[in-house]
């Protein structure tokens, strides 16, 4: 029983962290139809910044600073690497995203010298707590609640503000929105800013829980978050969140299956298999809308 609870606990917290990254994917894909491969690496860079900033500054200054710098990074990436390709074929933009991801990883290797870096302890979040006989970090408990609160705020933003309305319009019809006088570029920037900010929050939670950061640390969570976004129906925020929690829980359950079965190595493979099955049988995901091509 303790074992089951501890597996579920870590599943929920992993899911929550994926959810924060997945929102970034789903927002960007909803508007640009671009799989932003660099998003996972932005998340990793946010983690590294957390390490370097807290080394010189108190936590109260450094965490907001991480947030701001990550937002700036996301904004700059969009302006430098995606905006010039707005009218190019989709494949080019995706390749540009792969290039950015490559650049971020290599720069991180250069800066850290390839060493795994240790994420600093964050007061309260890093301290341990006992739940139903198992011991865990506070961050595990807090993550799901924080995620839900953030998602609620985001939904308010999207449904009840002008920017949100513009975002919805652009994701429905890019060209028409532009004709209707929506400043599409600003909307896209806002999307990247929101995505990056959530990735930064995600990085604080994730790396507090799993404190070793390597230059490739963002790649896997990134891909899984993308799968979560597809699973929930790309473009749908609640979908992405539910997808992320499901994937996080499934993954930890697979890892927790008896060793004699020797299937825990397939926890990543499972995520991809799930993705393929979803794409084939319900390509619009759980909450997405079906689209038809016009002939």
């Amino acid at each position, binding site marked *: 029983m*303790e*074992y089951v609870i*501890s*597996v579920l606990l*870590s599943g929920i917290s*992993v899911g929550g962290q994926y959810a924060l990254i997945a929102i970034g994917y789903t927002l960007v894909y909803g508007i640009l139809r671009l799989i932003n491969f660099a998003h996972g690496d932005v998340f990793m860079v946010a983690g590294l910044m957390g390490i370097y900033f807290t080394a010189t500054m108190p936590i109260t200054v450094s965490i907001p600073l991480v947030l701001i710098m990550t937002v700036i990074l996301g904004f700059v990436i969009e302006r430098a690497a995606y905006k010039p390709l707005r009218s190019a074929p989709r494949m080019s933009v995706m390749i540009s995203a792969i290039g950015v991801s490559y650049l971020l990883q290599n720069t991180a*290797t250069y800066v850290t*010298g*390839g*060493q*795994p870096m*240790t994420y600093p302890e964050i007061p309260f979040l*890093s301290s*341990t707590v006992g739940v139903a006989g*198992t*011991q*865990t*970090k506070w961050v595990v408990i807090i993550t799901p609640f924080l995620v839900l609160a953030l998602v609620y705020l985001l939904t308010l933003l999207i449904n009840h503000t002008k920017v949100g309305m513009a975002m919805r319009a652009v994701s429905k019809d890019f060209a028409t929105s532009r004709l209707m006088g929506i400043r599409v570029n600003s909307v896209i920037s806002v999307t990247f800013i929101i995505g990056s900010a959530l990735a930064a929050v995600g990085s604080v939670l*994730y790396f507090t*829980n*799993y*404190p*070793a950061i*390597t230059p*490739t*640390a963002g*790649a*896997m*969570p990134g891909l899984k978050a993308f799968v979560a976004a597809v699973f929930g129906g790309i473009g749908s925020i609640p979908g992405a969140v539910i997808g992320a929690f499901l994937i996080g829980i499934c*993954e*930890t359950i697979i*890892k*927790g299956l*008896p*060793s*004699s079965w*020797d299937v*825990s*190595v*397939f*926890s*990543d*493979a499972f995520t991809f298999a799930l993705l393929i099955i979803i794409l084939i049988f319900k390509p619009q995901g759980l909450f997405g809308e079906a689209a038809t091509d016009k002939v």
Partner: protein
Amino acid sequence: MKKIIALIMAGAMTLSLCACGGAAPAQGAGASGDTIRIGVFEPSTGDSASGGKKEILGMQFANSETPTVEVGGKTYNVELVMADNGSSADKAPSAASELVGKDVALVLGSYGSGVSMAGGPKFEEAGLAAIGVTCTNPNVTAGNDYYFRICFLDNFQADVLANFAMDKFSAKKAYCLGENGNEYDQGLVAFFKQVFEAAGGEVITDSFPTNNSDFTSYLNKAKSEGADVIFTPVSIAYAKQIMEQASSLGIDIPFLGSDTLDDNMVLEATKGTNLQLYVSTFYQEGGSEAFDKGIKDYIKHNSNAMTANGGNDTISAVTAMGYDAYYVALEAIKAAGSPDKGAIKAAIPGVKYDGVSGSIAFDAVGDAVRDTAYIKTADTASGTWAFEKVQTGSSK
């Protein structure tokens, strides 16, 4: 127009780089003149970069200590030539041929067996001897006459740890965790299992996918299965992650680690926790006071070395091994009596050297003759390694 510019740019790049590429090997005329070049075939990027850099550190320190070698009455300067094998098998052959192309007299490295096996044929083809420093997979030297090594093998290390587990903890049940697809982890786990089960113990093996960061499920599983020890022969980044998560889960089962865990990054993760971590390794700080003092000074006065060592001056075993490897290389050059690579290769099997990590000699396959390993434990209060015991294997 753009296309033309692109072409011109590509052309210009090609030409200029051709010039660089062409010039680089030409400037040092190999072992001629009064310089002997020793190739350093190590990862400084990729997954094993951390270990590779520490190994290089030992060589660099040794080189700064003894920058010359006397051969046949003539004093040669020794120069280390680096080639980054990128921790990956597809980059290793070109790194190896980079060294071959720079006409080195012999090669040291690598950290990580996979890259050594990928680069090995290049050295063999060129008739260049390579001395593995900490590549512990049996297949590195087997089938390659030109590859030697100064470290013990996976099966020996696993044997040592299995025996230690039974001696110290009277362990009956062991939980082994390795990275899927990593020959180092899986090899050690397999050998550990053989020895442990032969002695009547029970072994649970488990693997995690590459780039995994959540180990709580695995650790909880080990706990709920009632394991007496947890054996985690994983690479540094994973080890660090496992230690951090084990401490937050309050795991009180002792951890056993292989030589990769003998790293200050891992040590740091155990500091201030209640974890018990025991690692088998090549060298224990305090083994040679002169070396300890020398290298600490070297690290302190060299910021690059400090970074390479992970920001502090705790000595990793691989650094000691790198240090020894350099001196073994010098011995081989001296024994050969000439800077010629063929003569050096012929001389290596006869080399005997008492290094900081123990005495080194080679057997028929080219492996080091070693029968002891050091076991040390993480002193979690002070964040240092404490010497536990010298452990020998059961079969040898």
